[in-house]
């Protein structure tokens, strides 16, 4: 009897999981269907013939690779910048005492909840004035508005997870505060830093609104707005191309999921929710 119940439970749960994952499955399937099969009514659930022609077209006939490069540069730069500031900032907020520290921590929390829609107008004006409009630099700066508070929140959590005694022991052993940070805290913080870096990269990689408002030319355009532009400029919507583009856009995510998933869930536990 228990085995039947177990079976029913597993079937039920897995059906739900597959239902949730279906859109992504459909995305891959559509990208592999030849154009002729695509507009069949009723549509076929699995491709009758598998083709990579859409991927070829995407990579060689469209600015896709340019957009991809822009996204890589943008997300990497943002991540490095934010993680550097965030690590040092988290150390300060958690292990030092100075006036205004707690108000600062609260303000950080508060900015985490700000709508970017409020900031885009002044940021747009600011970038125009600084002569940075239409550059990747403007996007990096814009991305810090949401990436830095998030990274600080996550890193603060991870920092609090490093026992204070370790730093105390290092101090007694003759290390300076920064020396203790480098020798003892940083190695302990490393998994947390990797988690934060992954989260930040994905957030920056997926961002749309700032790219929409601040960048207008292909040279600085990242994947998110780039792919949508390909949608608008065409006369009819090239679904097969778009699905191939969607799969390619999700590549970094798939890699992270396949090999580094534990870092993601760890980050989720630490900074996602408290209490």
């Amino acid at each position, binding site marked *: 009897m228990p085995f039947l119940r177990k079976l029913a439970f597993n079937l*039920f749960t897995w059906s739900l999981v597959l239902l949730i994952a279906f859109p992504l499955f459909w995305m891959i399937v559509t990208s592999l269907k030849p154009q002729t099969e695509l507009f069949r009514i009723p549509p076929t659930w699995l491709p009758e013939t598998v083709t990579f022609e859409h991927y070829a077209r995407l990579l060689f006939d469209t600015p896709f690779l340019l957009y991809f490069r822009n996204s890589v540069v943008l997300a990497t730069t943002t991540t490095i910048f934010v993680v550097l500031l965030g690590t040092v900032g988290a150390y300060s907020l958690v292990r030092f005492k100075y006036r205004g520290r707690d108000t600062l921590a609260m303000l950080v929390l508060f900015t985490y909840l700000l709508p970017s829609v409020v900031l885009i107008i002044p940021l747009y004006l600011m970038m125009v004035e600084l002569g940075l409009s239409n550059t990747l630099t403007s996007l990096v700066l814009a991305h810090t508005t949401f990436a830095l508070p998030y990274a600080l929140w996550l890193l603060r959590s991870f920092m609090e997870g490093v026992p204070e005694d370790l730093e105390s022991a290092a101090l007694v052993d003759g290390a300076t505060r920064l020396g203790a940070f480098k020798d003892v805290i940083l190695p302990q913080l490393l998994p947390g830093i990797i988690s934060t870096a992954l989260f930040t990269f994905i957030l920056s990689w997926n961002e749309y609104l700032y790219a929409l408002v601040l960048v207008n030319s292909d040279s600085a355009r990242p994947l998110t707005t780039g792919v949508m532009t390909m949608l608008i400029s065409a006369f009819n919507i090239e679904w097969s191309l778009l699905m191939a583009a969607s799969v390619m856009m999700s590549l970094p995510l798939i890699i992270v999921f396949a090999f580094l998933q534990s870092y993601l869930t760890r980050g989720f536990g630490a900074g996602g929710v408290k209490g």
Partner: protein
Amino acid sequence: MSSTVIAAPLLERRYARLGALLIAPTIVVFSLVIVYPLLAAIYLSVFSIYTPTLEGEFVGIDNYIQLFTEPAFWQSLWTTLIWTVGTLSLQIVFGVGLALLLHQNLWFRSLARSLVLFPYFVSTVVAVLVWRWLFNDLYGAVNHGLMQLGITDMPVDWLGSMPNAMIGVILVGAWKYFPFVVIAVLARLQTIPDHLYEAAKIDGAGPISRFWDVTLPQLRSVLVVIILLRAIWDFKEFDLIFLLTGGGPVTSTQTLPLLVYQEAFALNNMGQAAAYSVGMMLVMLVFMLIYIRRTRRES
């Protein structure tokens, strides 16, 4: 009386200075890209600015009068509330439900968890593209599936008419963001000690009452935070709705963030848009305070 040191020891002050130094770069960046624009938004809201030329003039509180007297803001607010409540409810219900299922001993459990997490981390652009393809009235898999199952016999126009558009948007929002709830609840479930359930079993409680009397109270504190966070994030969501429907049909799915964008970049009224954004922030603030006070009173 022997010697006493009144001021804080030099060492203590040195440490404090180092701490302030380490947080300084963050503060500088913060002030530049968050604090300054925030104040600038409020400043801009008392001007009328024509977006393409960026020329403007001071108009005092005219933008705010327009905000109050004309229906655009209030309609958007109402739309935002429908969207938020709709998608949040689904996120919580499905999130908690799936977390409970994934907490059990499932075959290939970690694979299942990865698959469930995917929607959250995938780009909104990708999610929207996939769902627009799925919702396509002629070729979309959703319509095909519904017809195959016999639920409908005519293809449904999902994103082009109401109330379908709002339903569609709410569904996609739920699909995209419920994994956040799953992970957070799952993490909490894993910390509930087994002996609470054992004690309940000995007292004769069945599975439903065990959920109600043991699990739910333990989840309460996490759920309070999750609901607050998701409500805020859903309320300020721009990308998803903009890309799915653009606010349409007409303005029936135009939430407040979309209103601000349209006002600034389609209607070319930057000052007015700034006023709308300030209004939106105030609304959020009010809701947050009410929520926090309500939950603090209960605990």
